[in-house]
Every structure is written in C-alpha cells, then in structure tokens.
C-alpha cells in the first residue's frame, strides 16, 4: 500500500497532519503498538523538519506485510553537513521557531533512534531526502 502526503514549509499549524494520518493507517492494520510508537516519532520529526527548514515537501509511505518505508523529500535549502546535522543538539532553527519549543536539535537523532534504517541525502540549494525503514517484527 502506498500513501502520499504533501507538507507545506513554514506552516506550523498543519504540522503533524501527515504523521497522524499514517498513525491511523498503522492502527487499522493492527501493527504492533510498540512499532507504531517508534514510527510515529520518526514521522513527526521528519514532517516537522520540512515545515521548519524547507519550502515544501512530500511524505511517501509504503507499507507491506513486513515493513513500513517512509520517504520524505523536500525542496529547500538542503543540508550542507549531514553528519553535523545528525548530532544531538545541532540546530539552525530561528529564534521564533525555538520559542515554540522546536529546534532542540533532537529531530534527526530521534528519527535514527526510532527506525531500523535511515538514510539522508541532500543537495545544498535544492533539497533533502530522508528514507527510513522499520520492520514490523522487531
């Protein structure tokens, strides 16, 4: 099964919509609650990164019996140094975004911790692609 959700950069009032829709699907499919709990963290952080750091993007979710594959692609500034961005606490979020409680620099580390596989690619000035896979049988 494949699903696709559009994510609007800068629009914090819609942040979480895609993640919440995917969570509902996983519940309907009776995926193990522990797996859903992990995947939800990764979905939300990935979605928020597009909202906070990019112009627009989409979340593509592919679910089969064994696993969920999440691919988040955006057009935006890209990430110049992915290893640095992956470090806990590193953030380029604006003061306004931090004031809302975002921009703790924990998003990418949360995504890595809560998925079985994660791969980030990015081109500066163009955009970022994040792919995450989690198996249902842990």
């Amino acid at each position, binding site marked *: 099964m494949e699903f696709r959700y559009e994510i609007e950069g800068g629009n*914090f*009032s819609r*942040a*979480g*919509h895609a*993640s*919440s829709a995917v*969570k509902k699907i996983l519940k309907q499919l009776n995926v193990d609650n522990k797996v859903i*709990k992990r995947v*939800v*963290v990764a979905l*939300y*952080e990935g979605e*928020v990164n597009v909202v906070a750091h990019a112009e627009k993007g989409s979340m593509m979710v592919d679910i089969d019996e064994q696993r969920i594959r999440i691919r988040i692609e955006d057009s935006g500034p890209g990430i110049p140094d992915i290893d640095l961005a992956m470090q806990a606490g590193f953030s380029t979020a604006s003061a306004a975004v931090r004031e*809302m*409680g*975002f921009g*703790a*620099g*924990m*998003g990418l580390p*949360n995504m890595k*911790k*809560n998925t079985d596989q994660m791969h980030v690619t990015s081109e500066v000035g163009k955009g970022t692609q994040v792919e995450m896979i989690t198996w249902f049988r842990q």
Partner: protein
Amino acid sequence: MKVRDLIDKMGLTLFSGELCLDKEISGGYVSDLLSDVMGNAAEGQVWITLQSHKNIMAVASLKDLAAVILVKGQAPDTDTMAHSIEEQVPILGTDQEAFETAGQLYHLLNA
C-alpha cells in the same frame, strides 16, 4: 488515577476535552521542548508545559498522552482548544509553576 480525579485533587482549570476525562494516568512528563516530549514521553502521561500553541496537541495526540497541563496561568489558543477536542486530549491549566505542579502530580501518583 483518572484525569477527572486529577482536576479535582489539584484544582485545575479545564480548558477543553471534558468528554475525555476518563483516561487513566500512567505518569507525568515536564518539558517545553516538543522533540523531547516526542522522544521521551510515554503513553498515558500528563504533560506539564508552558507551551500553549496548537502543535502541543499534535504531539500529545501522536504520543497518546492522557492530558496536557499548562502552567503559570497560560491559556490555550482557540485553535489549540479545537484540536484538543478533535484529538480527545484534554487541556488543563494552573497558575502554579511547573515545579509545584510536577511535585503535586508526583505526590498524588505515588501516594
């Protein structure tokens, strides 16, 4: 303890979500960082925070939290309340600070 008992015992304001006060409370989590709550809070916990914008409800609902308590007299925005009803996670409030609020909650849950 259910959310409804917590409101009684702590004298909390109920801003929204009066139809979902029967959730059982498993514990509490104190943070104003959304990623921290996302990464570390657990199902059924009550989230104590200063943040009152709409995104707290997305986090609370994705994490299946029992309720959110806004401290220091913070009131939720209208769209935060709408989201709370939609997602069935009540928003409560107190004039106290996070320290006192967490202390009381801890005491009530461990009494």
